[in-house]
Every structure is written in C-alpha cells, then in structure tokens.
C-alpha cells in the first residue's frame, strides 16, 4: 500500500507519458526514418537508407543535366521565415495595447473582453479566411468603402503578400493577446507609480519597467505565433493566390504531385530543427535576462 503511494506520481503520469510517446514522439521518429528512406517511383518509399532527401535541399540536377547548387528551396525557406517574423512583429504591435486596455478594465468587463478575444476560435479557420477574401475582394466592403474616397471602382486587394499578412495576423492575434494580457494583469501598478516618482517619463517607464516585467508573456506570445506561422498553408494559398510557395505547401507538394516522400520528410525535419533552434535560443536568452535581473536586484 505504501509502495503504491510512493509510486503514485509515476503511475499517475503514465497516461500522459503514453500519450506523448504515441501521439508526439513516435510520429516524429517515423518522419525522421522516412526522411532517410529511398523514394518509390510513384510516391511511397522503401526502407533502404538514402540521405538523398537532405542533399536535394541544396543540390539538384539543373536544366543542363548536371548536378548544381539550386537556391530555390532556400529561397522558399527564407520567405517562410520572413512571413512568420513579420506576422509575429505585427501581432506584437497590435496585441500590446489591446492587452493593456483589457487589463485596465473592471474584472467583469475584463472577463467579457477576454471572451471576445477568444471568440474567433469558435469558428473554423477556413471560414475566417474566406471572410477576409470577401472583405478584401472585388466589390467587398473595404474596396467599396474606399471607393467613396476616390479609389478606382472594381479594385481588389486580394492575391498579394499584404493580403496574406492580413489573414495571418488576424488568425494569430489571440495567441499573442492572451499570454501578454496574463503577464500584464499580474503587473504591480505601484512599480509604475514608483517609476514616475523617480522622474521616469512614460517612455522610460514603458522601456525599463513594463517591458521587462511583461517579457515572459511577450516571449510566449511570440513563440505561439511564430511557430504555427512557419507552417501556414491556408493563408498564402487562399489570400496570396499561391503564386509563391511557402514551406507548408512545399512539403505538401512532395507528398502529392512531387511523389517524393523522403524529400518531403527531410524538409519537415529541417523545419522542425530550425524551430527547435529558435526555441532553445529564446529560452537561453530568457534565462539570461532573468538571471541578470536577479543579479541587479
């Protein structure tokens, strides 16, 4: 009886471990294995070791028939990171004031506003993107409104990078607002008063008091937005017109029309590796900042 009680944490956590193992770690191991398998002639693969998928990211047969350095996949990877970075930055700029405003309301009002922020999650993502297609599209509400200010009739704001970014920022916003709100809510207001007492102006107070204290929220918000933005498929295709590939569609293509599963798995592994690197760097920097703050205190 006593033994069981001692081992309770182990047995209690077993379901969680099993779930992690089967639903998370096992699939990643399968992808890793496929990425070094040999491609089948019409898709699929055979279990023969072959690292060609990784080599293909950098080197491919050119039109002259010789193996040459091909930057096309690096361009796609770079563009994907740029889009995810821009999405994160814009979300941050918009989310900070929103989170601040919510935290300054009465508790009842706060609950309502937080509820409203999460409301879009109740609607399927594809519907939300379709809504933006209507808003920005030809004869949509936005062009119609701007026509009253002299915009040429029949203008459409669809099928460009700006349209992609609008939908990306919109779908990711709640993921940024909520963690920042959580850390602002915990902020001790007397610290801000203290800053003003010490002749800190608004900007200094924001930079030296508010920003460092809400940094954990900002960091988790940035991670929650940046990582899924890297894998975005829907917005670039529906809003951007699919004229430039992102990593998500590139991977999808290899499992479909490209019929090169090991290559698709290899790109997925590279994407995952880069995300892990990003997370480790962020974690280390956060740890150093906390350590620095403690030392100063």
């Amino acid at each position: 009886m006593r033994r069981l009680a001692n081992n309770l944490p182990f047995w209690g956590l077993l379901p969680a471990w099993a779930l992690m193992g089967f639903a998370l770690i096992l699939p990643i191991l399968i992808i890793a294995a496929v990425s070094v398998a040999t491609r089948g002639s019409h898709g699929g693969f055979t279990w023969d070791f072959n690292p060609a998928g990784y080599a293909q990211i950098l080197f491919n047969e050119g039109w002259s028939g010789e193996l040459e350095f091909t930057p096309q996949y690096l361009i796609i990877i770079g563009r994907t990171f740029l889009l995810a970075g821009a999405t994160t930055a814009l979300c941050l700029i918009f989310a900070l004031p929103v989170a601040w405003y919510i935290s300054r309301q009465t508790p009842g009002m706060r609950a309502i506003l937080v509820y409203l922020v999460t409301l879009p999650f109740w609607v399927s993502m594809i519907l939300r993107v379709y809504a933006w297609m209507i808003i920005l599209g030809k004869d949509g509400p936005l062009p119609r409104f701007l026509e009253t200010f002299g915009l040429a009739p029949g203008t459409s704001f669809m099928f460009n990078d700006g349209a992609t970014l609008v939908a990306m920022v919109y779908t990711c916003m709640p993921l940024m607002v909520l963690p920042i709100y959580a850390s602002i809510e915990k902020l001790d207001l007397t610290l801000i008063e203290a800053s003003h007492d010490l002749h800190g102006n608004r900007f200094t107070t924001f930079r030296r008091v508010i920003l460092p204290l809400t940094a954990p929220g900002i960091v988790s918000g940035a991670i929650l937005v940046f990582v899924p933005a890297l894998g975005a498929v829907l917005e670039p295709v529906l809003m951007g017109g699919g004229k430039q590939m992102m990593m998500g569609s590139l991977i999808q293509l290899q499992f479909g029309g490209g019929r090169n599963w090991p290559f698709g798995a290899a790109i997925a592994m590279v994407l995952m590796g880069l995300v892990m690197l990003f997370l480790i760097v962020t974690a280390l920097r956060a740890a150093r900042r906390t350590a620095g703050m403690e030392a100063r205190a």
Partner: protein
Amino acid sequence: MKTLLSASALALITATATGTAAQAEGNLNLYVWADSINPELIATFSKEYDVKVNVDSYTSNEDLLTKLQAGSSGYDLSTPSQHFLRVMIDEGLIENYGANKLEAFNNIEEKWRNQWWDETQEYSIPIAYGTAGFAINSDLYKGPTDSMKVFFEPEGELFGKIAMLSYPDEVVGAAQLYLGVPFCSEDPDEMKRVLDLLMAQKPAVAAYSSDNIASRLGSGEVLSHFWWQGEVLKARKGGAPFAFAFPKEGLVGWIDSMVIPKGAPNQENAVKFIEFMSRPENATAQMNYYAYSSPMKVNAEDIIYTPENAPELFIEVPIEFSRTCSPAAQDLVNRVWTQLLQ
C-alpha cells in the same frame, strides 16, 4: 441537470440502436471526387440493398494516390483518372475484381473498353470522362477564345485576370498541348520551354488555386479560370454567365473509373454498387447529375444535354488524354512547378 443527463442517455441509446440497425447488411465507404455521385442514386442503392453508404471526397488524383499508398484507408470504392489508375494497378494498390466478367462490362461503350490504363479491364469500370481547359466569364469578357495563346500569352483586359489550378498535373499538361510538347516528355529542353512559357504567363496570373473557383469567376475577380468543363456546364445551368473555351490546340482529357482499393473491407458491396451505377437508367441519371459525358450505355432519350444547350459535352476540337509519366518525366514536371512558384 437530471433532465440533461437522461436526455443525453436517451440520445446515446438511440445512437447505438440506429448504429446496429445500419450495420444489418453492412457498409459501403466511397472515396470519390467531390460532388461527383448523384445523391439520389446513393439513396436508392442504400434502400435497395440495405447498405449504409458513407461518402468522403477528394479534389485531386494526388490526394487519392497518397492516401492509398499510406495503406489501409478503409475505403471500398474510388474513382481515379486514367493516368493514376495505371499507377495504382502497377503498384498493387487496387483489387482485381474481375470487372470484365460483370454485367457492367457489357454496358461500357465499345470504344472505352480495354484501353491502355486497364488493358484486360479486370480492375476498373469507367464512370465519366471530360476535359480541363479555360472557362471565361462571358458577361465581362467578349474577346476571342479560339486559341490557348489568348490565355497563356494574355494581353489587355485578361492580363492579371487569369487564374490557374494549383496542381501541376493539369496546368503543365495544357502548356504542353499549347507548345506541342508531348505529355510526359523526358527531354529537359522541351520542359524548359514549358517553364519559360509559364514563367512569362505568371505576371498575368492572379492566383493558382483550386478552391472557390465559381465565386472567383462569377464575381469578376478573374475573367478566366482554368477549370473542368462539366463544372462550367453545371454553373451555367444554375444561371452563371460562364462559357468554356474550345482552343484549336485541343484540350486535356481524363476518364474516371470505379476501382476497389486493396484490402477494402466491403468489397462485395462495392461490386454491387458498380453494377448498380452501370445499369443504363442509372448511368443516365448519373450523367444528367454530374454533367460530364458517360462512357457507359445510356438511355439517349432521357439525357437532358444537347449540342445546343450543352456545347461543353459535344467537343469538336481534339482531346488529348493525360498519360502516365515515368518517374524521370514526373520529376521534370515537378521541377517546372517548383521553379515556377519558388
């Protein structure tokens, strides 16, 4: 609270009861092109044979092939196009159900029997054939449509108002037809010409997308969209101002056939369904619903389409059917596509 509990308990019991009833004579899981099978026929079949029919759909042959390659899909019947059907036979992904011994075989029009995609006709029974090409919004575009040059090298009002499908399969095929490059070319120089053509067309293309086509073309967001001719016919029947272009270079053709994935759980029901769909009266109802031509014997007097009201189904320009490419040729198609969208 108590009411809620008993209500959900009741719902659970009802669900279980209907679940058992439906399993009486088994299931049939269809995995077919979106909106491709006449729902009235499914209802009739379901009642006649006491089979519960589940319908899942896909929008590209690639999706279907990938799913079958991944194994144990749980589907009993599917409808790949000819060039993918060939791959599925060669890769052992579908069952030999002795199609040539079925009553359905005798209902196939002579000229569609024993073709290169299934020479012995043991694996498949065809259900529909059609083409892919350029559709236009005829309210907004009044210009010429008699050559693919209009769409691949657009000038004036069409520039920036053209949309292509998001699959290399159809887009590259049409470009090859326009340039006179054979399908499945393994010659890098020829495929480089295809890439050059598509690259030159790209600034005039608004989107590469296979979703939401009717509303994009109907709203005038684009004036021309690469599409399937039966979809144009269906939308036009519904009142949309669309027309299908018949370019002199010809059109890319496809024919879909009913196959049974390897290891399908309800193969007997699948065969019953194939026989059912191939009866002339049902093939007629299917063609009237789907708005693509039927390779089966139909009751001609009951077909609602005529050359006057449905020119899409009475095509006079040459139709070139997609081929099954070698891996080398497929890689070239893929290279063209990746460089186009890099």
